[in-house]
């Protein structure tokens, strides 16, 4: 049900853009107003969400320790999995954010007959996750060339590295393939593994279809039904420099692509995609395990009702005296 709903939602989006541009000719709406609105929603929504999280206090220091703690000088600490300093914590976070280290730990071990242990390569999720995020990132960087004049060196560099295979014309970008393959894998995994299917919500399928639609329209434009790149750049530069224009004859495919991007941006802050920002704030990862060394302050710490020693002694004084236990008041 979730799958169908999400797929239909994305198809409807495609249809809306197609009809809007092709039938009614609302090029300005889809070329300028919607992207602006989406970008605005993305930016304000993203910032709002981050601020909302950041405003919530971190009352306790609760890192998940995945290695040996700081102990005696003769015990080797596992600084990256159980950091006790800020620097090491940055290291832990970097590995987490850049290499998805926790996901990588998803090793499974196989016991064949007897004591021989062999490690099974159970890292497909990690690999697909990594492939997806990095290719998406590189694709975004590549797209900067539409928004900048002159095109900066790092964008050229990314393009040439990405297209190093020099296959076909225009040159094939590796990341286009990787992106589509990874998204497909992530989708199939959700459908085929029963436990994944059980936990998946429409909110999990929808972004996958959306991203797939983005990738497909992008690939179509680049390699198959060409659109007028010069005019696309004109439109993009117009958006970036706040002098929006919509040149004639770009081709409807572009507007569909742009509309899907706009949907993604607008949807982003209200969805699980916010894990992009959230991962940096996770208290089980971004704090050193040093709460025995340095006192962590809870901003809302409040006094609580306790049963004091005096009350306790009042309850048991006679018995304590009889048993020879020292008391405050005889």
């Amino acid at each position, binding site marked *: 049900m979730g799958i169908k709903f999400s797929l239909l939602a994305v198809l409807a989006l495609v249809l809306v853009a197609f009809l809007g541009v092709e039938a009614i000719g609302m090029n300005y709406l889809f070329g300028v107003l919607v992207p602006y609105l989406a970008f605005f929603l993305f930016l304000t929504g993203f910032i709002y969400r981050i601020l909302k999280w950041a405003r919530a206090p971190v009352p306790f220091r609760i890192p998940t320790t995945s290695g040996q703690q700081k102990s005696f000088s003769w015990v080797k600490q596992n600084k990256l999995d159980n950091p006790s300093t800020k620097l090491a914590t940055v290291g832990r976070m970097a590995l987490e954010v850049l290499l998805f280290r926790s996901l990588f730990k998803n090793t*499974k*071990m*196989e*016991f064949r007959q007897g004591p021989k242990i062999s490690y*099974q390569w159970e890292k497909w999720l990690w690999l697909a996750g990594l492939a997806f995020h990095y290719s998406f990132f590189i694709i975004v960087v590549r797209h900067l060339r539409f928004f900048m004049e002159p095109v900066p060196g790092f964008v050229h560099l990314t393009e040439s590295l990405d297209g190093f295979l020099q296959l076909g014309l225009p040159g094939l970008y590796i990341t286009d393939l990787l992106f589509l393959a990874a998204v497909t894998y992530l989708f199939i995994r959700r459908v085929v*593994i*029963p*436990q994944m*299917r*059980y936990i998946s919500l429409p909110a999990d399928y929808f972004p996958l279809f959306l991203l797939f639609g983005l990738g497909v329209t992008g690939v179509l434009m680049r390699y198959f039904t060409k659109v007028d790149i010069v005019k696309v750049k004109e439109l993009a530069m117009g958006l970036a420099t706040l002098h929006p224009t919509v040149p004639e004859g770009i081709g409807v495919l572009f507007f569909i692509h742009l509309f899907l991007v706009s949907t993604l941006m607008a949807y982003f802050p209200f969805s699980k995609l916010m894990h992009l920002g959230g991962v940096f704030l996770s208290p089980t990862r971004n704090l050193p395990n040093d709460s025995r060394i340095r006192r962590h302050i809870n901003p809302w710490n409040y006094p609580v009702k306790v049963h004091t020693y005096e009350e306790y002694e009042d309850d048991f004084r006679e018995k304590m005296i009889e048993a020879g236990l020292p008391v405050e008041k005889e």
Partner: protein
Amino acid sequence: MDLENFLTQHQSAILKRWFNFIIDTYPPETAKLFKREKDPFANPVGSTIFQGMQGLYQELVREIDPETASPFLDKIIRIRAIQDFSPSRAIAFVFVLKDLVREQSRAADDPEETLSQDDLTSFDGRIDRLAMLAFDIYVQCREKLYELRVNEVKNRTHRLLQRANLLAEIPDQEPSL
């Protein structure tokens, strides 16, 4: 074809169907994990049940010897006795072999390759003996569970009662020779 040869020849096919049968009594979300995960430490349920079934199958090829069959049966039933199964479903996997073996036999094209009525009766007898064993083991497991409960309640305060001289313990005595 005689029973022993038949069982040996069709071991992997019957064993596989038998294993699938028992795993399919779990929710589908879990069944996949139990079937596929090869690491016995990440998947104790699936791997233990499979080991138990392999052992039991060897027992079935011969006559059932309660001494050697029990440990294999125990592996499987000990798990199912504490999961969400009624007693009958916990040990249903034993009975299902009657059907699986018949199907396997029917599937053979060559009449020479099928089992005779006598063979089937003999096989049913083995299953019946296994079923009786299974019943015993199931009850033992459940009894053990309640014994653990009682012991735990006792142990929780045992030392205290002992100290408070509330226990009238009869000292251990050597039997007089």
